[in-house]
């Protein structure tokens, strides 16, 4: 389960980079890119806490 969540998190980060690159290459509108980035952000913050270790402070 943790591994699956980790893969989803990493995919979210990939989307975060691919969407603006598509804008740069003129394959995507900036407004669409913003939606993708927001979706990636939500997915990252929902999934990452389950597998990222809590470090002692």
């Amino acid at each position, binding site marked *: 389960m943790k591994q699956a969540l980790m893969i989803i998190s990493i995919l979210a*980060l990939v989307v*975060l*980079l691919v*969407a*603006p*690159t598509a*804008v*740069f290459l*003129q394959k995507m509108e*900036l407004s669409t*890119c*913003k*939606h993708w*980035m*927001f979706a*990636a*952000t939500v997915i*990252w*913050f929902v999934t*990452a*806490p389950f597998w*990222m270790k*809590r*470090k*002692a*402070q």
Partner: protein
Amino acid sequence: MAEDAETVQNEPAGGEFEREPVPENQTKGWRSFIGMYAGEHAAGTEFMIGPLFVAHGVSAFDVLVGLLVGNLLAVLSWTFLCAPIAVKKRLTLYFQLEKICGVRLVELYNLANGVLFCFLAGAMIAVSATAVGIPFNMPMPGLNDMYPNSVGWILAVFAVGAVISIVAAYGYDTVAHIANIAAPWMVLVFLACGVAALPELGIHSLGDFYAIAQEKVWTGVPVEGQSQFTFLHVMFFAWFCNLAMHIGMSDLSIFRFAKKARMGLASAAGMYLGHYMAWIAAGLLYAIQLNADPTDTAVAPGPMAWKIAGATGIICVIIAGWTTANPTIYRAGLAFQGIRPKWSRFKVTMAAGLVATLGACFPALVMKLLDFVALYGLILMPMGAIIFMDHYFSAKFGLQEYYAEKSRIVFNWAAGLTWFVTLALCVALNKIANIEIFFLALPGWFIAAFLYIALSKVYQKSITVQGAVS
């Protein structure tokens, strides 16, 4: 820029190894340091620094090459000045200072550090406030504003400041955890903003980048009311913006956990992600705003990030400001509590948060962030020179290392005078010789190094003679 983190230390606050060397079996490898530096140096203030370079009229060459060289010098400072002493002694900065300077002088250092932390946190609160104000159409402070420009600004700052202070006083662990989770995402949002900004400036291929960057981003012409920055300004700023941490030796507390001194090179992750890529990306966002309306010179990270990244941009600005202001206020509280251990941690942290919030109300703090960051490093730098000279040159000059500890004094006047006189001479260099604040730390370090040895020669001799007489 950012403050040093305790994450890599992996010890409870006020916990182990504060007054003893870190044992070999507790040392950490490259991954810990790379992760920590990459995360810590992509902070809310990066959203301000990149645009302020644009406002100060740097050229594309100044930024691209100046940052490359300046960040390299910073990495080398961590690697060859700070990390070797940290690995050799494996003590915190404070304990090492106590041994050299005495407990009373360390209290003074704590006070200076705490106050500076408060204002640094204030700048971060102001960054977050620019994002909080967007849904309310709040007028953003201007580049040359000194005082609050609206009631809305004060309310936004107090809302952010109150949340950050309360969380710092109550739940530091949770925010630290959120900061860890946000770090990789935040670095990529900076990069994403930079990439998505390129077509808005008319850059459609990497080949276009330099020519358009010169024409539309780093034009070499400052915004009205701003001084002209050159290659040297950029290089020295990049080198010295974390002066307190490397040459000032604050990160002794971090690298005492390093297996080898060469792990100082891990700081490159923070420098080239946070202080190169993020500053450039933030500069591009500001250039879009200026190209759309040359009269709109306000450096407001919230609206800039919103324009390119939408809601993600706003979240990034808020989290970047919040997650870095939070530990900064917490550390300010710790620094003040170090002076009076009986004070309640909660009350001291809340007081530090209030000072930070009051500071954030004044846009001058964040609009003059470059000057403040340079001042912050300069004030703490002489203590780094003292530690360096004490470690490497005490024996060579016939001096006693860790003099305060050995002679049981609480205030080493040689160290104290070195600190005060160095700062006084730096002020004189600034006022009389017109040397800008960004360049003062270099001569200042040599002044401090010389003064410490010269004053110690006199002071240690006089104490020894007095001791013999009594």
